[in-house]
Each structure stands twice: as C-alpha cells, then as structure tokens.
C-alpha cells in the first residue's frame, strides 16, 4: 500500500471519530481516493462479466452451422402461421403496477439513511427519529389503503 492511501486511511478513521469533518479541497481529494479505490475491483469484475457475455454470444456464431430457411427464421407460434405483430396492446394493469412501484420505491429510498443513522441517536433525539419515521410510514400507509380501495391492485 503506498503512502498516500495509508495516510488517507488514517485520516478517514480520524475524521469518522471526530464529530465534525471540515470539507476542504484536500479532504475531498483524499475522500475520492479512498472511495474510488474500493470501486476499482467492481469495474474489473464488470469488465470480466462483459468479456464472458461477449465471448459466449460470438462463439456460437463462429462454430454453429448457418442454414437459414424461411420456416426456421419465422416467429414461433405453436406451429400455426404467425399472424399480426406481438407489439400490440396489453393490459393497462401492468402500467399501474409499474407506476405504483416507482412511488413506493422512492419512499423506501428515504428509509435507508434513516435506518443507517438510527442507532447513533441518543435519548430524546432517538424518540424524535422514531416518531418522525412513524409519521412518514403512516402517510405511506394512507396512500397504500387509498390505492387498495380504488382497486388498482385487483387482478382477475
């Protein structure tokens, strides 16, 4: 490990221990250094996965036989002559599910920072953090029961 990363680790441990961390240019640079260092292996992993995917997609193009016929290249429809296109209308229910998912998913994202910091609160702040989130979940549940009553989640 080089001197810079060692220094930055010590720095980072100290700044976690101190309550307040002043963000000046040097600190931001050190922070970026640490952060990026832990993401380099992920980038390497992604490169490996892309390589695997590309090689396997190409390999059967090279080694496989190539005898196209109009029957073989047509769309499979259980032996019946395919009619129309598949890109047509489908149930609006799926759009409803997707929209509701986005709403709920965004609300879940708000819970993550709360959950990470929750244990670090003390005394009255802890109760405050708890009550705050209960109010938030309460609002979420009101919306949830509203969509249930409206029948947006009814499948038949």
């Amino acid at each position: 490990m080089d001197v810079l990363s060692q220094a930055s680790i010590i720095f980072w441990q100290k700044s976690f221990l101190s309550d307040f961390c002043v963000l000046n240019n040097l600190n931001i640079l050190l922070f970026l250094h640490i952060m990026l260092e832990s993401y380099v292996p992920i980038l390497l992993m992604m490169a490996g996965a892309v390589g695997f995917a590309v090689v396997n997609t190409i390999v059967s193009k090279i080694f496989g036989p190539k005898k196209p016929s109009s029957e073989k290249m047509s769309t499979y429809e259980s032996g019946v002559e395919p009619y129309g296109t598949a890109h047509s209308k489908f149930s609006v229910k799926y759009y409803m599910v997707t929209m509701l998912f986005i709403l709920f998913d965004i609300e879940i994202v708000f819970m993550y920072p709360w959950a990470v910091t929750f244990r670090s609160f003390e005394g009255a702040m802890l109760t405050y953090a708890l009550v705050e989130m209960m109010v938030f979940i309460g609002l979420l549940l009101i919306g949830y029961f509203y969509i249930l009553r409206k029948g947006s989640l009814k499948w038949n």
Partner: protein
Amino acid sequence: MWIELLISVIKIATVLTVLLVSVAYAVYAERRVSAFMQNRYGPNRVGYQGLLQSFADVIKLVFKEDIVPVKANKPIHTLAPMISIFVALTTIAVVPFGHTIELFGRIISLQITDVNVGILYILALTSLGVYGITLSGWSSNSKYSLFGGIRSSAQMISYELSMGLSVVGIILITGSLSLQDIVLHQNGWKWNLVLQPLGFIIFLVASFAETNRSPFDLPEAEPELVGGYHTEYSSMKFALFFLAEYANMIVASTVIATLYLGGWQFPYLQSFGLPPMAVSILQVLTFCAKVAFLVFFFIWVRWSLPRFRYDQLMNLGWKVMLPLSILNIIVTAILVSVLK
C-alpha cells in the same frame, strides 16, 4: 498499488471461476435432485455418475445454430442475454466469503471489495436484471416472449419492494450498509435469522420471486407460454439465460446466507483456539456449506410446490408481503430504540 491490483484480479478470477463451475453443478444438482424426487435416474452417463453432463451440454450448445427470427429487433435481441448474465455475475462482488486470510505475510480480505453501500449495490444490480428479461421478451416479437417478459417485469418489481423493505430491519440492527459489517455483527448466536425471523421469511420469498424460481416461475410457465421470454433464443444465447438463472440462484443464496445466516461466521469458532489459518479456511467452508444448503433448498422447493396463479402472485406481493415488511420495520425500530 500494483500488487493490490494484482490481488484484486486474482480474487475476481477465482470468484468468477468458482461461480461458473458452481452454476454447472447447480444445473446438474437440479436434474439429479428432481430425478430422485420423481423416482427416476436423471443424467448419469457423461463422466462418473453424470458429473460432466453440464460441460457436455455447453459444448453441444456452442455447436448449435444461432437463430434470430426475421421479425426480431436484432441489436436488442443480442443485448438482452448479455444484460442478464452481466447482472448475475457482477452482483457477487460485494459479498464476503470469509473474513481475512494471511498469505505470504500479507493480510488479504476474503471479499472482492467492501464498498460502504454494499446492500444498495446489490439491490441496484438485481433491479437491472429486469431489463434483460423484459428486453428479450419485447425484442423477440413473439407473443409468448412478450407475455413472459411483461409478467416477469411486473412480478420482479412487485417483490423488489418487500425485498428492499425487509432489509431495512437488518440495517436498523447493524447501522451499516456494508456486508462485511453485517456479517461481523452476527457473531455467536446473534444471527439475523434469530433477530429478524419475519424479515428472513419475507426476504427468502422475495428472492424466489426475484430469481423467477418456482413457485414464482410464471415468466416461463411452460403449459401456457412455451418457453416464456426465451422462446426465440437458441444456442449460446439461450445458454446465457440459463446460466444467468442459475447464477442468480447461487448469488441469491450467498446474499441470504450473508444477511440472515451469519455469512462466514461459525458460532464460537474463535473460542476453540485453532491456528488463524485453520480459522480462515473453516470460515470459508462454513460459508460454502450455508450457500450449498440454500441452493438445495431452492431446488427442493421447485420440485415440491405447484406454480402460483398470476392474481395470487400479485396479491401475495402487494397485499401480504408489503404490509408485513412495513410491520417488520415498525417493530424492529421500536425494539431497537427500547433495548438500546
């Protein structure tokens, strides 16, 4: 600097190789276990007891014709299986398969990388998996594929909600998103399985739905949709979907083991007074044993339970699992603040 990079590359190569070989044997295990459950033999000819069957299948698929239907959207049709396998292989980057090991006077952490947003990374990548399946369904321009793709995307995003919510309970207990921290927190008897029983059940069921495994395998329900989203795929492109499905199953098992079953923790191993090298190796083996058991559990469930009907599936996701996971958060938050 360069030596760190080299260590990373070695770790990545090892993990990818082990993952891909385990995928081959997960396929073999599925075929043998299902055969055992249905009182037949299963593959037992290629190699001793059929142990080389999966490799023979891969070689066969390489020499098969790569058929792309004329009406299909070619670039997306090619891209879709690549997305699926990419997501399945990269998710494992943040999962710790051991604590540390001392080799050649150097302490190496047994994890590809310990990012401080580990859980978010896993959730983000698994939700990208929806693209592979949806795009394959849409681009094939076949009705079976399209319905498989749409069903799958609706199913996966519905269960992603309960999955994301059930993990909040663990974060409340641990106070960190890093998977190594979560494992370190589960020492002794304090596995999250004991502390979060409801969260565990929700996460387990959601993992089955996210990996499109039975009883949630509606995207490829054979009687109605032929092959589902991969109806129009052949040769290695089909194999990539197949590999991705089993890789997802193994990765989901590693994540469940890490989050709820103590990861590499072997209860009270430190008090036995073993040499550090033996401890490290035992921890990795413990992790592998937990993952193997979970993979077997996935297979066991598939050959025991019938498939859901689509309305039952959506009702379970939205009307049972979602309220239960919110209840889990409320109870955990209150208990954490009281017991603190």
